[in-house]
């Protein structure tokens, strides 16, 4: 019988060609990346245009709505209301013809760095500043909650899928299914009643104790903020974690039925290696896409939670803007959340070719 050859030292030219061979599969990625980024900018342009059309072609201009509201409530019995309105219009550029307004809008938003003019909710602070002041709260609470939910949900889901034949897991699946169909605000309210009012373990709302002055350098203040954040974050983690775990579980189960899994078993690999390199690795790909979509939709999903927990954030800002017809802020929030969705799906699409080699080829 033949024996195996001795190891040979490879020459440097061989190393070079090996390097080329290693890089070669990634090359179509460059083309794919460029194409994907191009599409991204086009869709962002489309989103900005849609936002413009939606808010400018709505019946009635925002200012007259504001003024008529003020008049109705008797608060705005100001003399010379019409002149004031005209002045505001000029200030906001609403006196220009629509095409000019559109071009100005494009310039301000795309080149001017999200310049949407002054807000009404906090006039004369700019819309951008008003929104960006709220954004860290939203990201801090809910984007991080979504990430935690994904990490926990994906891990639990992978295990539930892997252990699908063990009867006990169906209990966990039942609980997850129940959590998944429960609206997040029900969980939130239940948590407030139980852990807040009943057990007095956790604060029921507010970003931090009302008496405190915000000071991010103070460890005690940060601790206080974190304590207040536990319930909002835990609510999201429970509901979204359940949803992510169910998704991951079914992805795992479908992967476990694949031929490459029984082949890996036939090779004598340990269950752990099969779980890590064959099952989890392959099920993870669609799960990453699911995270991207969920993160992009954060702003849409948090409106009600911010209200329930009385915490600052973009959702609450949007509600306030709606109440007084602050079109600039509404427009800004809508744009921001659209761009967030687009950007996250861009990131996911750029990440996937590195996780899934098939995409490198199929899209070039």
């Amino acid at each position, binding site marked *: 019988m033949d024996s195996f050859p001795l190891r040979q030292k490879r020459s440097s030219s061989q190393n070079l060609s090996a390097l080329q061979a290693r890089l070669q599969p990634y090359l179509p990625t460059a083309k794919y990346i460029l194409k994907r980024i191009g599409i991204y900018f086009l869709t962002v342009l489309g989103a900005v245009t849609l936002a413009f059309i939606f808010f400018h072609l709505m019946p009635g201009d925002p200012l007259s709505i504001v003024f008529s509201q003020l008049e109705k409530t008797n608060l705005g019995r100001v003399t010379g209301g019409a002149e004031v309105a005209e002045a505001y219009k000029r200030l906001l550029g609403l006196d220009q013809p629509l095409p000019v307004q559109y071009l100005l809008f494009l310039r301000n938003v795309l080149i001017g760095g999200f310049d949407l003019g002054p807000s009404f909710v906090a006039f004369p602070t700019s819309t951008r500043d008003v929104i960006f002041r709220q954004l860290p709260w939203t990201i801090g609470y809910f984007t991080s909650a979504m990430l935690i939910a994904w990490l926990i949900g994906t891990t639990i889901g992978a295990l539930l899928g892997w252990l699908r034949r063990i009867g006990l897991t169906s209990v966990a699946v039942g609980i997850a299914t129940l959590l998944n169909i429960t609206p997040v605000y029900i969980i939130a309210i239940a948590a407030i009643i139980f852990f807040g009012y009943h057990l007095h373990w956790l604060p029921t709302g507010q970003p931090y104790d009302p008496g405190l002055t915000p000071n991010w350098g103070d460890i005690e203040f940060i601790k206080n903020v974190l304590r207040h954040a536990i319930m909002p974050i835990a609510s999201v983690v429970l509901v979204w974690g359940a949803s992510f775990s169910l998704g991951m579980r079914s992805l795992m189960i479908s992967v476990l039925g694949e031929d490459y899994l029984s082949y890996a078993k*036939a090779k004598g690999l340990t269950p752990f290696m099969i779980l890590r390199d064959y099952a989890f690795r392959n099920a993870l790909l669609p799960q990453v896409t699911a995270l991207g979509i969920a993160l992009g939709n954060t702003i849409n999903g948090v409106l009600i939670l911010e209200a329930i927990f009385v915490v600052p954030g973009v959702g609450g800002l949007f509600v306030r803007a709606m109440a007084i017809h602050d079109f600039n802020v509404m427009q800004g929030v809508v744009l921001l959340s659209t761009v967030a969705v687009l950007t996250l799906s861009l990131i996911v699409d750029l990440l996937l070719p590195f996780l899934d080699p098939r995409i490198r080829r199929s899209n070039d």
Partner: protein
Amino acid sequence: MTPIMQIRDLSVGYASRRAVGLAVTSVNLDVEKGEILGVVGESGCGKTTLAVALLGLIESPGVIQSGSVQLRLADDKLVDLVGLAPRPLRQIRWKEIAYIPQGSMSALNPVLRVRQQMTDTLVQHGLSKAEAIERARWALNLVSLDAAVLDKYPHELSGGMNQRVAIATAVTMQPAILVADEPTTALDVVTQRSILQELVKIRDQFGTTIIVISHDMGVMAQVVDRMAVMYAGRIAELGLVLNIFDAPLHPYTQKLIGSIPKDTGQHLEGLEGEAPSLWAYPPGCRFHPRCSLATAICREQTPELREIISGQYAACHHCD
């Protein structure tokens, strides 16, 4: 010669909610060391189920109803793959008995490079990373593939190349037995021939025992020493391939061989009717609804596989 593998009364089924349907029924088979043994039969007759059972890979909804698969190790010790604990089973897999799957395209993980898929087993069986890669190169070379394939993903290779990768992967540990399930299905004729040649080469070079499974009599004719003809989960005929092609004993084998297109390209005798499902086998000889020689005894009594001529076995009431 002492057989390297002894299959005794092996019955493998699939469980539904109410019953178990036997895809492999009371199979007895000795596999001789160094031979290429063919298992042939129509699709659905239980060939893959048998192969999977030989690897100790049957799992739910599959169940091993009875029997044993004794494997003779290098030190002449016998181990029964049926009911072996997971750990010793893992050690036997690939080292003693390796597998060339049906459809290597779907058997290779699409998101891992060939390098990882060829070497992970080796590392797991105790080789160093460098040794594993060296051995993978050696194996690829053996099946006429360039080592550059190591850096490729399965979808970047042709069907024939994937099949060669699967064969190379199977020989990396120099196993005593190779089980190749439909190794040439879905490949063009030229590739088929060269793939089969690789198998013969491996047997000739290393004395590897190879079990080749196929629905294709042509494959049997090309590479196999001995073959087992399966029908509806049972072995219908067993013997040297030359003898069987020369003078098939079982009516089913006769029809199978008769249905091979001859040089003229004509189907001389087609197989009429369909093979029974594992949930509704006919009583007696499972072939009787399709057999022109069937008599009353065929409908009542199951024919046992018995030696009709020296070295040639058939399970039929009417073939002496």
